[in-house]
């Protein structure tokens, strides 16, 4: 790792001021992704502000009938929370499909949203990668692209967002609360948090440096069944090839794009009376595969059909 200085934040306001006023500073919470990347010299912060002890780990009901999850709540705490298990099982299912028990015990809600891609070329510092070194090129286009995107990609980047949790949050219409360096707060839908790669794949979210995610807010659960299904190359502790989160009539797809993918076209088709197959076909009409990942179009389509058909049967 490159040398860095470290401080433990006293409160959230001081933490955002510290990061905003120190060039090269970053927040650290669980550290499971950031430290991994620092060891590979992919991330090189000069200063770390540890926000993991801030009192932002609570999980509590909102007056609107939803649930507010503090950004420092660990993945394990969220997945096991009685309210999450009872009313947002798609979120529990997504979280326990990600990482290992050890990682979920450290990884936080905020950090999970901001984790970076597992594209092999982002990790391989001997190869070009527009996300790591803007303008250097995308090695995945003609390389090992089994895990790459089939929706919303660009010639500059075909990497995918690796989070399972975020896919469920997008299906649940969750929002994130963000604390700005000025002390002001803003909130935005999780669906709008991550960007498509375009020409700037190194800019991954609409959160500015120095802004801190303080919470994720879930609206009341939508009516209808919830489910999360993930396909991958081994049964456990592996990134997804594709995943599908369904909450009532709301559908999101994972591991297929640079962001958790809200399947709006499929939802619209379902509302108009389409079959699950027709709905998934509508969503995937614009999907585009590469040499090694074209199978993902069929895969995610069939996974979506399977979940939506099962939910329809359960209703009947």
């Amino acid at each position, binding site marked *: 790792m490159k*040398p860095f200085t470290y401080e433990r934040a006293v409160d959230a306001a001081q933490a955002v001021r510290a990061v905003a006023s120190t060039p090269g500073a970053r927040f650290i919470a669980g550290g499971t992704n950031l*430290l991994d990347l620092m060891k590979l010299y992919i991330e090189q912060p000069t200063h770390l502000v540890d926000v993991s002890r801030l009192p932002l780990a609570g999980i509590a009901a909102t007056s609107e009938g939803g649930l507010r999850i503090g950004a420092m709540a660990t993945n394990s705490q969220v997945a096991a929370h009685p309210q999450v298990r009872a009313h947002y099982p798609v979120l529990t299912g997504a979280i326990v499909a990600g990482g290992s*028990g050890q990682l979920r015990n450290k990884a936080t809600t905020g950090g999970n949203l901001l984790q970076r891609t597992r594209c092999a070329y982002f990790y391989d510092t001997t190869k070009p990668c527009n996300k790591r070194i803007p303008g250097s090129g995308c090695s995945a286009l003609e390389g090992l692209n089994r895990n790459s995107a089939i929706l919303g990609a660009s010639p500059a980047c075909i990497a995918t967002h690796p989070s399972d949790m975020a896919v469920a949050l997008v299906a649940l219409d969750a929002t994130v609360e963000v604390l700005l360096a000025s002390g002001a707060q803003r909130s935005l839908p999780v669906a709008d948090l991550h960007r498509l790669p375009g020409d700037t794949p190194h800019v991954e979210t609409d959160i500015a440096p120095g802004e801190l995610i303080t919470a994720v807010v879930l609206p009341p659960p939508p009516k209808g069944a919830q489910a999360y299904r993930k396909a991958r190359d081994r049964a456990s502790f592996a990134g997804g090839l594709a995943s599908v989160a369904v909450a009532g009539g709301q559908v999101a797809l994972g591991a297929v794009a640079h962001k958790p993918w809200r399947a709006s076209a499929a939802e619209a088709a379902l509302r108009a009376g389409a079959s699950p197959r027709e709905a998934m076909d509508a969503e995937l009409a614009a999907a585009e595969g590469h040499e090694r990942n074209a199978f993902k179009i069929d895969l995610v389509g069939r996974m979506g059909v399977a979940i939506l058909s099962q939910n329809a049967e359960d209703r009947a």
Partner: protein
Amino acid sequence: MSTTIEVNGQARTLDLDPRTTLLDALREHLGLKGSKKGCDHGQCGACTVLLNGVRVNACLSLAVACDGDKVTTIEGIGQPGNLHPLQKAFVTEDALQCGYCTPGQICSALGMLEEVRAGWPSQVTDDLGAPIPLSAAEIRERMSGNICRCSAYPQILAAIEDYAGDAA
């Protein structure tokens, strides 16, 4: 940076470069070589310790971020001549060949059993509202963060089942 961590019940104060991981602090600064460095990237689980009672990868933890915390390593779980019952079960079931992953397996299994007792669900838990059965499928899924390159998995499963059955 001055950092104080309670390791196996004893407060230890170290002056550390912020880059020092908890794993390196334990092994290189405190001489506790039981926790192993396998991949150093959170993929193999050989470095698993209990941090404030919860299993984590010590390689993906900064030691300075553990200031004030309580850490239990394999050295705090059992000692030669005073093995923990789970360690005895590993011996009885022949749950190791080279032994490099074993300290991590033991720490992980002890943390895992607490998670089951607390009702934390896993990917193979069918009913999110019911007590969790300690089935073979649950143990296998929950131990997937610990790799054994000798592939002693059937024996590791048997050892954990033996211990959990006796402890129940």
